[in-house]
């Protein structure tokens, strides 16, 4: 009896294991998949025009951004090599190839590589349960994707997407968005259902289903490189930093033709959630008599005054992010701190507020036991230099680190600002004298050679303040922007310290000159901004384009004689507020617009 039970137990165990094994052996998605081009041909083909946002649940911020888009922008140097972003790529006009990614030692299927469809780099969908990167990690045009099987469907979650588009007519998709795809195979048919969630530019998830057929004789193709040998001068006789766009009230001429030839009311052309439901057909009949009726504002995320950037990195946790080469980023201690590491010691760019220096030093100890030798200050801000004293005390300088205390280097204008603040009711006046820079430079450049790497501090006049420095780690290929760029908000323009809007824009254009991307306009030189995640040139370009468009709008309003109040009411930053705006706190959208207005009004 006992033997029989044991035998039965063995059979049951084997059965269970066999079933469990078959559960993990899921449907095979690998192969060459030919795209079917039957759906949305008017949006996926050459007939798509700016202003045709039909069928897309854009928020007001979304359609406004799409309306300002000028297709000439893709001819700028910095955008010629941008591939189809992952938000659009599967919907694009190309075939795809799904290739299994196998862990060689175990033979285990750990992912699929999705190739083709004018995606720049191969995109990997990881199936091995790995976590998504930190919110401080760089974004890319392919994003970061993980998948898991739910019954007969591969469900793929994608995060870390760069700013992109939903269709090739400027319908935007923000970097705050995420995407879920459902890969469903029936025989030789593959359907990919895509849900895009975007708190800024969409008022509800945007769903599309794209069909492919197995095409063993096909070739996904459409990849390779796109870099300097493909980038040409498409836009001639334009000033540096030129950003084509349409001012509010001016639209792409193709839109009017589209509206007339297709009998599309303007409201419907803007898209939006309500336009996607069957009952909207009744509204279309009403609009047939007034096709240019003003569209209703729509969008939970970016309607009215609720359009503000979400909190990102609240500073409650000091964290380390490896950037590249010898450079790390330490966040959560005020502004971002960069740390370069090597045998000579540690070079910090900025020192945080000083409130959590112990945590900053502990963070440094997590990747080196060398002392801090230099602190390079990028601007006279308490959030950056408040920690100078305590960090410098813990360090050592001199040729071989024989002098107690790290050296603190800044442009001389930082000292001037600190001196001027003494005794006044300014945030800077709270910075103790022991935190002041010990070494200053008056010129445009300060060179530092440490850990076998050339480091340059480049003074940038009248930007965020009078005393900004950009720091370039030439070997590691990392640039620290200081407070000139803040990927989490509009740049702070400290007019009391000599900061100007125009100076910030000039500085961002200089940063774009300094940075050099890899193929497909991503990676290469990495960027550490005042706060938020690690970026690259493409992120700087988005930031520069935003500043340029806002500048042009405010200048246009100034030319028309508008007052500051009228300019504020016109909301020249509207579609960017969900990314960078704030209605409360130390730096609001209104303060940014005022700083821009006053600076541009003088010019």
């Amino acid at each position, binding site marked *: *009896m006992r033997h029989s*039970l*044991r035998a039965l*137990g063995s059979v*049951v165990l*084997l*059965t*269970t294991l*066999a*079933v*469990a094994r*078959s*559960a993990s*052996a899921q*449907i095979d998605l690998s192969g060459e998949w030919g795209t*079917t*081009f*039957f*759906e*949305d*041909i*008017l949006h996926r*083909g050459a*007939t798509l025009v700016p202003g045709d946002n*039909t*069928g*897309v*649940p854009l928020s007001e911020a979304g359609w406004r951004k799409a309306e300002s888009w000028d297709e000439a922008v893709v001819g700028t140097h910095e955008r010629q090599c941008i591939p189809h972003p992952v938000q659009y790529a599967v919907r694009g006009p190309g075939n795809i190839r799904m290739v299994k990614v196998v862990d060689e030692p175990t033979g285990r299927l750990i992912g699929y590589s999705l190739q083709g469809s004018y995606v720049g780099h191969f995109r990997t969908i990881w199936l091995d349960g790995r976590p998504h990167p930190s919110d401080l990690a760089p974004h890319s045009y392919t994003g970061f994707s993980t998948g898991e099987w*739910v*019954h*007969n*469907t591969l469900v793929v979650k994608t995060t870390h997407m760069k700013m992109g588009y939903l269709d090739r007519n400027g319908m935007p998709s923000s970097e705050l968005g995420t995407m*879920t795809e*459902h890969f*469903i195979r*029936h025989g030789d*048919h593959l*359907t990919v*259902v895509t*849900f895009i*969630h975007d708190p800024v530019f969409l008022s509800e*998830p*945007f*769903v*599309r*289903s*794209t*069909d492919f*057929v197995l095409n063993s004789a096909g070739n996904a193709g459409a990849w390779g490189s796109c870099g300097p040998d493909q980038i040409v001068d498409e836009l001639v006789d334009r000033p540096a930093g030129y950003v084509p766009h349409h001012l509010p009230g001016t639209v792409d001429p193709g839109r009017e033709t589209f509206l007339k030839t*297709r009998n*599309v009311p303007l409201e*419907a052309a803007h898209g939006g959630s309500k*336009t*996607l*439901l*069957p*009952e*909207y*057909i009744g509204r*279309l009949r009403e609009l047939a008599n007034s096709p240019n009726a003003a569209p209703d504002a729509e969008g939970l995320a970016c309607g009215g005054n609720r359009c503000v950037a979400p909190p990102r990195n609240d500073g409650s946790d000091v964290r380390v992010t490896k950037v590249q080469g010898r450079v790390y980023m330490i966040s959560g201690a005020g502004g971002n701190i960069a740390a370069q590491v090597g045998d000579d010691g540690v070079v910090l760019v900025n020192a945080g507020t000083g409130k959590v220096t112990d945590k900053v030093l502990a963070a440094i100890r997590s990747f080196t036991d060398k002392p801090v030798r230099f602190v390079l200050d990028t601007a006279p801000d308490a959030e950056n230099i408040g920690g100078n004293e305590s960090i410098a005390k813990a360090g050592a300088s001199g040729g071989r680190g024989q002098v107690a205390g790290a050296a603190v280097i800044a442009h001389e204008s930082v000292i001037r600002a600190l001196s001027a603040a003494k005794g006044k009711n300014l945030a800077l006046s709270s910075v103790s004298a022991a935190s002041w820079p010990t070494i200053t430079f008056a010129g445009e450049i300060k060179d530092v050679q440490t850990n076998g790497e050339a480091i340059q501090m480049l003074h940038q006049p009248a930007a965020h303040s009078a005393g900004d420095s950009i720091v370039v780690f030439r070997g590691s290929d990392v640039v620290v922007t200081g407070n000139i760029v803040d990927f989490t908000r509009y740049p702070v323009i400290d007019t009391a310290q000599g900061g100007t809007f125009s100076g910030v824009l000039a500085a961002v254009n200089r940063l774009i000159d300094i940075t050099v991307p890899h193929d497909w306009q991503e990676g290469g030189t990495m960027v550490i901004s005042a706060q938020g995640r690690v970026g690259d040139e493409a992120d700087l370009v988005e930031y520069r384009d935003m500043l340029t468009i806002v500048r042009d709008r405010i200048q246009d309003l100034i030319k028309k004689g508008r007052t500051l109040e009228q300019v504020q009411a016109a909301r020249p930053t509207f579609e960017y507020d969900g990314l960078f705006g704030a209605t409360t706190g130390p730096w609001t959208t209104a303060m940014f617009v005022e700083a821009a207005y006053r600076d541009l009004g003088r010019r």
Partner: protein
Amino acid sequence: MKKLAGAIICLVALSAVVLDAQRGRGAAPVSGPPKAAAPIDLAGNWVSVVSEDWLQRMLMPPRGDYAGVPLTLEGRRVANLWEPANASADGCKAYGAPAVMRIPGRLKISWENDTTLKIETDAGTQTRLLHFDASAGSASKPAVAERSWQGYSQAEWEQLIQRGGQGGGLVPPAPRAGAALKVVTTKLRAGYLRKNGVPYSEDAVLTEYFDRLSEDGTEWLLVETIVSDPKYLTQDFITSTHFRREPDASKWMPSACETARGKK
């Protein structure tokens, strides 16, 4: 021995759980009455979310707009004959099974009986009957003369069978019930793939796959539609249409596709 018996019971229970996971939500073996064996629940109220082909679906497309449809030369010729002025006389031509799921509207899906799934559309007030029982179906299949807009639909739960493997055959491959419904429709009346007279012929065969998706707390129905028509299509015409679940039928707005002249 009690411990061993307990372990066996646990393993059997685990085995059942794993099989369930393979077979889909609450799946039972695909045997017995189709209604009871349904691996997915399609019943309920659904609304089409028109985020694809909006221009052709929400508005009346102009004559000659057959962009995206792989028409033969004959198909194009016929499509070009369509007159917008006569659109009101088209009746239910655009509401046949090959096109009706693409028309903006709402669906009510319910079980007519243990072997027949019913899909009602408020757009055009159409009813589709999906027959699972092949034997009963053959008996009740309409004669050739009884072609209709919705034709005759044969349904089956799609089964995904693992082939081969398992080495010595100690344990046979487990049949894996996929969570999809496959429907093949024939005996159609000739009609329109789009409202502007883009034709399909009575020889068209419609194959559909119905899948359920869950996304961020919202339930979706996906219908992949494959139209084969040797007369008017150069290749299979494939679209996939998505519907969002609605809590009730309060937004059900039936509209007839009949004309004043009673043409149907």
